[in-house]
Structures are given as structure tokens and as C-alpha cells.
């Protein structure tokens, strides 16, 4: 099995941002956790990385599998309970996850619950007052992203061709919708939510910040400092606002592209109480 | 996808709104409500192109007996004429009950 196919960006950015400081021992090894400084404040950084020796064969390429989702839940919840009576440390999810693990064993063992436990932990951290930031450095796909990052107060993404968000991999999506990959790509150009690239995603208004001009593959010191500054700014922004996901509907891009999401909520509120 | 508009004379006011059906494979939904004038207006959106004549034929038959001044919206996902007529009659029946 070639390791070159494996997404390594999670590891690269985890090491770049933490300097391997404050590493927290973690099982499985595919989940990396560290408490490192961000603007002078202890911050919990969490990444899911490939491990070719993963005990679950379907989770060796950086997928979010049963153990990974479970470990995310454990380490987010440990930060919540440790900070119960003190300042809530920020939590940064470094996101490069190609998919959740696809396997019959995973289904039998309830990977949906494991992923839900991870999403629950992140959302609970957010509600407890931890600023939770998702930093997209590579793929943010489907259930894997729902488990690792999508419950964050703010989503930041590096600008680069390999940084993408989607509900299903291109090949599989083409098969399921009975279209060719080329047709799918053509549709993506016309219909923003169907596109894979991060620029199209930015048009949906869900991103807090698209960080341009950073080398996502091999970041230099200046790149890392730049990203650190953006993370810090996002933490400050979170602390000045409500712990829900309302900001995802408030941006100018959201008001345009997610107009229907806003309209649904507006009219629902009108009808909520009987006339 | 194709849109078809049809108009029919009416003799009776429609007083209620009725919804039946689902835009599922081989099925359709019908939204029937009072029309703003004394005519019936039908707006069909269908997934299958090129069947305008058949749609007109089915609706003509329905309006031989239905006299309500209704605005009817049909959202179709490849229903056969038989299913279309069934859903229209179901809507008319619901209007009476």
C-alpha cells in the first residue's frame, strides 16, 4: 500500500501549528491531539491522520473510522471537563478527512453512533463556551467532516486546489446520480453547492474565512504565522458572539446563496405560533 | 423538464385548498386551490418532455365533469395518464368531502 496516496496534510499542519508541543497520548495513533499555545493561550489541536497499521483495515488512509470518531469524542470531552471551572480553551480541528470508513464491520458496529459521539462532543464544547474552530487544510468530506469539524463555531479554509468540501467523493457521486464525472464537474460550475473546490464552497457563505496565499502542502514559517493569526482572530470573534451556528447564515455570501435557508426560517417563525 | 399551461371555463366557486400525491417515481402531486377569477387554470411541471398533447387530453377529460374555478398545480415525476386521472379525481373528491 502506497503511503503517497494518503493525505498527509493533517499531520503537516498539526505539527506546524503545535510544534509537537504538549502532545497528548492518544489511542489510536491516527488521532493526534496536542495542547499548544495560540496567542499565549493553551489550545487543543486535533487532527485525524493516516496510519497504515490501523487495526481497522478500512481506516488506514486517514478516514474517520470507529476508533477515530470515538477518540475525537474522548479528547474533546476531556478538554470540556478539565476546563469546567476555568477559562475554556479553544479547540482547533485540523481537517483533512477523505471520508468516513466504509465497511460492513463498521456498519455492524454502528459507525453512525461513533461519528455522532464526535459531533456531540464538539457541539457540547461549543455550547460550554470553548471556541471551536475548524481549519480545512485538505479534504472535508461527508460524514467525516460532520464528525470532525462541522460543529465548529467558525470554519476557516486554506485556499488551494486540494482543499475541498463535499457530501460524497466524485466517482461515487457520479455513479449514484448516474452521471459522468465530467458532467458532474460541469454541473458544479453552474450549481455552487455541487462543486468540490473551496472557492465554490466559499460562495455558500458557510466559511468564516478563506485564507489565501498560503502554501498548504509545505507551509513555511510565514504561512504558519499567518494561519495562527487567522485562528486567533476567529477565537476572538467567537468569544464576542453566541455559541450557535447562526453566523453561517449571516454572511453576505450566505444571504445570497443560502437565501432559501434564511427564507425557510423567517416564514417558519411567522407560522410557529398559531394565529 | 417541461411546463404546460392549460385553461378551462368554470361554473362553480372552489372554497378550499386540497393537496394530494407525491413527486415520486411514476407519481405526481396536485395542489388545488381557489382561482383568482371564474376560470380554472392548470400549471403542469413534468419531468418527461414532449407529452403536451396527452396532458391536454387527460385534463380535457377531467374538466368534462369538474366545473370548479380552481388553480391547479401539478408536479409530475413520470406518472401514466391513468395515475394522473386518479390523482385529479382524488383531489376533486377531497374537495367535496
Amino acid at each position, binding site marked *: 500500500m502506497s503511503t503517497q496516496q494518503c493525505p498527509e496534510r493533517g499531520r503537516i499542519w498539526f505539527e506546524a501549528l503545535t510544534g509537537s508541543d504538549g502532545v497528548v497520548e492518544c489511542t489510536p495513533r491516527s488521532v493526534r491531539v496536542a495542547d499548544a499555545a495560540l496567542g499565549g493561550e493553551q489550545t487543543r489541536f486535533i487532527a485525524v491522520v493516516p496510519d497504515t497499521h490501523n487495526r481497522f483495515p478500512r481506516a488506514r488512509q486517514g478516514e474517520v473510522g470507529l476508533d477515530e470518531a470515538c477518540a475525537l469524542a474522548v479528547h474533546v470531552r476531556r478538554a470540556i471537563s478539565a476546563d469546567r471551572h476555568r477559562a475554556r480553551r479553544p479547540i482547533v480541528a485540523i481537517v483533512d478527512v477523505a471520508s468516513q470508513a466504509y465497511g460492513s464491520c463498521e456498519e455492524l458496529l454502528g459507525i453512525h453512533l461513533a461519528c455522532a459521539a464526535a459531533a456531540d462532543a464538539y457541539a457540547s464544547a461549543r455550547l460550554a463556551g470553548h471556541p471551536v474552530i475548524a481549519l480545512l487544510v485538505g479534504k472535508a468530506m461527508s460524514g467525516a467532516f460532520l464528525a470532525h469539524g462541522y460543529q465548529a463555531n467558525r470554519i476557516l479554509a486554506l485556499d488551494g486546489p486540494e482543499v475541498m468540501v463535499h457530501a460524497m467523493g466524485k466517482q*461515487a457521486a457520479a455513479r449514484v446520480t448516474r452521471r459522468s464525472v465530467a458532467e458532474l464537474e460541469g454541473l458544479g460550475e453552474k450549481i455552487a*453547492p455541487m462543486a468540490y473546490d473551496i472557492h465554490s464552497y466559499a460562495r*455558500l457563505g458557510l466559511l468564516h474565512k478563506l485564507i489565501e496565499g498560503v502554501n498548504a502542502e509545505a507551509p513555511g514559517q510565514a504561512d504558519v504565522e499567518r494561519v495562527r493569526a487567522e485562528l486567533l482572530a476567529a477565537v476572538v470573534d467567537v468569544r464576542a458572539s453566541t455559541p450557535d451556528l447562526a453566523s453561517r447564515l449571516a454572511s453576505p455570501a450566505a444571504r445570497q446563496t443560502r437565501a*432559501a435557508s434564511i427564507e425557510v426560517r423567517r416564514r417558519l417563525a411567522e407560522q*410557529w405560533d398559531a394565529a | 423538464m417541461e411546463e404546460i399551461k392549460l385553461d378551462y371555463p368554470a361554473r362553480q366557486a372552489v372554497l378550499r385548498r386540497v393537496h394530494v400525491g407525491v413527486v415520486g417515481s411514476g407519481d405526481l402531486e396536485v395542489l388545488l386551490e381557489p382561482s383568482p377569477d371564474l376560470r380554472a387554470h392548470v400549471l403542469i411541471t413534468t419531468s418527461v418532455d414532449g407529452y403536451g398533447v396527452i396532458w391536454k387530453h387527460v385534463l380535457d377529460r377531467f374538466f368534462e365533469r369538474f366545473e370548479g374555478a380552481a388553480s391547479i398545480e401539478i*408536479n409530475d415525476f413520470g406518472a401514466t395518464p391513468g395515475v394522473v386521472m386518479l390523482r385529479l379525481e382524488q383531489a376533486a373528491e377531497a374537495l367535496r368531502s
Partner: protein
Amino acid sequence: MNGAAARDGRRFLARSSFIEMAARERARAMLDADTFRELLGPFDRIKSPWLPLQGIVAQADDGVVLARGTLDGRPALVAAIESAYQGGSIGEVSGAKIAGALELALGDCKQGRPVLPLLLLETGGVRLQEANLGLAAIAEIHAAIIALRRHVPVVGVVAGTVGCFGGMSMAAALCSRLIVTRQARLGMNGPEVIEQEAGIAELDASDRALIWSLIGGEQRYAVGLADALLEDDAATIAAAVRDAFAQGLPQLERSAQVEHLVRRLACIDPLRPPDANTLRRLWGEGAVN
């Protein structure tokens, strides 16, 4: 013996299949009689803005029925997904309807006016024609369920026959209590997707008996991934829903029982994965974990 059979027969005939109901009937069948009041119904015509751009006919309610009413006299909200429309998939509008309604219920709860949220889940997950906006809406549904659960139990029903998959299977797992039937299937990845992604050696999606043994309602109930296993009968399900709410908040939500999950996974050898029956022994009632 004959008497019992006759009684069973009468009970069977008296049954009203929940599975065969469309979403609107399902929602109505759950609420107290004559309390059903629909929100954003078909005549509000908030349709998918994305499907017509792709030549696909949109349904007037985007496949989600929202209704307010009461359950045993207490204010409730039902969200029912219509599986016959686009496989019950979650698009921008259908997702926003569920998330938005749960957010309003949360607002009421915070002001001391509890609203009981009930989700009738019948969905393949994200609607791929609206991909990223469906995924985003599902994240918002998750967020709303988690926030709401601090005030009232959130109850989910997966009855079949579509089942509940993708990001919405996580929503089912986030429910305080989950009710299933034998016809239900609950899983993260649909069998077809697994076969495509991992090969037919991993899973043969056409082997229906195998699929049901892995992710069917009976198995999910037997290993504690669902709280009640019911017959396909609307009145039985409606009664179980009321029971689920009457029990109040669980001591610890299923998706927050992380240590329990860790212990459960620790006893698994992935290179010799258990079959469905072995897992029942490992995880089922009476097992150590």
C-alpha cells in the same frame, strides 16, 4: 392455541400500517387527534431552488412535513420526511425546515415553554444534487438536536422501508430515544455505497438478508443502538412515542456515553470481526459492557 391465533389474526387486521403512510399521514397519526397544524405546507411553495436548474421537478414541500400539535396534551413538533420524494434526501429547503423548526422549539424551551420534538426519519441522507447545502443543513440539524436535548428528550422513529442513512443516521444516533421497526435499516453508509467504495468482497449490496442482519431494526435494538423495537402499527408507534417522552431526559444521552463506546470497541478484533449474532452476545443485554 386456536383462540390465541384468532386473537393475533384480529390484531393483525386491526393494525394500521405506519410504513405504508405518506409523511403527512405519519405526522398526523403521531399527534393527538385534531391537533395537527402544518407549518410551511405545500401551499407555501418553498421548493428546492436547485433541482429545477438540473431539470428535476421539485415537490411543493421539498419532502418534509412539519406539524405542530400535542402529544398527551403537551405541545409538540413533528418533522416527517417523505421517502417517496427523492429518496427522502436532505436538500437545502428540507434540511432548513427541520433545523429551523428545531431551533424554534429550542427558543420556546429556553423561555420555559417546552416543545416535544419528534423526528420521523426516512432518508438516504444528503441530496447529492444539493450536495454541500444538504450537508451543511445536516450539521445544523445535529447542532439543533444537541442543544434541544438539554431541555427535552428528542425522539426519533425509523420505520422503513427506506431506512436512515448518511449524516441523518448520525441525527438518529443523537436522538435521546430511538424507536425502530423490523423493517427499518439504520447505517452510516448505504450498502450500495459500501459496495462501490470498498468492493463486493466487502459487502454484497444485493444480499438483503445479510444487510438486514447487519443494520436492520431488530439487530440495532438487540445491541442497544435503538431503544424500542415495534410492530408496524401506527397506534403502537404513537403509544411508544408518548412513552419515550414520558420517561423524560435520559441520565446520559447515548451519543454522550463515550466511555461505554470505548469499552465496547475495545472488545472487538477487527481482523476477526464478529458477525451479527456474536455481536449480540458481546454487546446485547446481559453482556458485561
